[in-house]
């Protein structure tokens, strides 16, 4: 009964914490969520979704048991149906205030389908929309020669996939480090963080399509709007995880999350979409005139 030893050690270290006693100790799920309910934190129930997530977590503890070199192990990350993916996308676009995206939609079944294909779609949407927008902006000018700008696809791919995988890695590492110093109620696994980030990027797909409209005001309104929506999803997900920490560190973490998200949006807008009001003057081509003079004479 190693679990009892662990519990005894933890109690000795932190005698003020209240612990839950579970009837059958053999069924304590081996997952990363520490469940300590302290009185007076009723709002956590909503955010934690404790109504039926106990069951799903007990079941989830036995799910990912295939060794990592088999194909079945990776199939467990794609164990979603169409309606589940659509629900998660809907949850990322319409954040319900007070509801945690991870608890409400992911429920210990993080998938890699959503993050991967949303990022792929976003890469191609940004590249294609940027190309189209530049084409329309420069359309009437006589010196403009259309180029497909294919290199920008690889730049977009690198940026977006790096953001969707490295930032969650850094955030997960940071949260694990803080977890070792301050006991948090909520802690997320790496895949759940990747999942939240991936689905929160979905709102940028229609935003990128609407960025074709060559009006600066429209573009910036769109940036603000999409940033509010996806930023609020991220904030509501990660606030319970850092809330117990030092106030300034918690605010700095959440602020950094929002700042990086904003940087991604603004950076994509600035790099892939030319500014609409800049008017390139038609340059004089003296060589052409000289050659016509020569032929005419």
């Amino acid at each position, binding site marked *: 009964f190693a679990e009892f030893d662990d519990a005894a050690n933890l109690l000795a270290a932190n005698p003020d914490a209240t612990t839950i006693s579970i009837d059958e100790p053999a069924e304590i799920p081996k997952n990363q969520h520490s469940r300590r309910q302290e009185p007076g934190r009723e709002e956590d129930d909503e955010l934690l979704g404790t109504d039926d997530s106990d069951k799903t977590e007990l079941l989830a503890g036995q799910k990912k048991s295939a060794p990592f070199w088999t*194909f079945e192990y*990776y*199939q467990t*990350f*794609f164990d*979603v*149906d*169409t*309606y589940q*993916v659509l629900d998660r996308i809907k949850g990322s676009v319409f954040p319900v205030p007070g509801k945690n995206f991870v608890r409400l939609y992911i429920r210990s079944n993080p998938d890699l*389908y959503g993050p991967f*294909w949303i990022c*792929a*779609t976003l890469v*191609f949407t940004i590249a*294609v929309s940027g*190309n189209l927008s530049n084409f329309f902006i420069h359309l009437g000018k006589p010196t403009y*020669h*259309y*180029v*497909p*700008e*294919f*290199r920008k696809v690889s730049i977009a791919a690198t940026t977006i996939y790096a953001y969707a995988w490295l930032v969650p890695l850094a955030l997960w590492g940071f949260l694990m480090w803080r977890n070792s110093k301050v006991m948090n109620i909520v802690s997320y696994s790496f895949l759940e963080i990747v999942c939240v980030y991936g689905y929160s990027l979905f709102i940028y797909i229609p935003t990128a399509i609407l960025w074709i409209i060559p009006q600066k005001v429209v573009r910036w309104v769109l940036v603000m709007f999409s940033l509010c929506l996806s930023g609020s999803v991220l904030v509501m997900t990660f606030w319970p995880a850092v809330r117990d920490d030092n106030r300034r560190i918690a605010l700095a973490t959440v602020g950094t999350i929002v700042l990086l998200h904003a940087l991604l949006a603004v950076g994509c807008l600035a790099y892939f979409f030319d500014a609409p009001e800049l008017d390139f003057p038609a340059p004089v081509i003296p060589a052409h005139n000289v050659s016509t003079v020569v032929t005419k004479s």
Partner: protein
Amino acid sequence: FAGLADVSISENIPVEGEITVPVGSHSPDEDYSTLDEPVRDTIMRDLKAVGKKFIHVMYPKKSSALLRDWDLWGPLVLCVSLALMLQGGSADSKDDGGPQFAEVFVIIWFGAVVITLNSKLLGGTISFFQSLCVLGYCVLPLTVAMLVCRLVLLAGSGTVSFIIRLIVVVAMFGWSTLASTAFLADSQPPNRKALVVYPIFLFYFVISWMILTFTPQ
């Protein structure tokens, strides 16, 4: 086997039957080995198989011939010809030109592999190479579209030619997606079909975009 201890078989039950061993005849008329046939027969057999699959793609019916006898010759030929035709784009020796040969090649093959892995991870029952075969063969309508686009661009590159190219590419893109969906959708679990079809749609959309934005120098 305690229950069988008291079962006894009398030893004089006649056993009847026939045992024949097929004598392996090594006459050269037996068609099991293709080592002795003329080279022309070997090549024509493969060419006929590839041609039959091309016809299956152009008229997608629910036949399993495409899936059963997969081969990757057709996809290779299509990919190479598409990549070659996409060359000669407006490369101003800056980085803004169209895709290079290697980029088209990598996009098609890497994209097909990723889509196949995706459908297998979602629980599909199709084999890896069968899926690659179908996805590669269904690039045929888009290759035809590329050929048509290059011919149209020889005539001129104004608005009319763009509209013609747009219609052709959109039609062929729809054809490709429908053809590959017709072959691949049956092997997927029923409540995940949309999850499998969407990446195929994205894949052919990217190829169509490369074809449509091709501008000669």
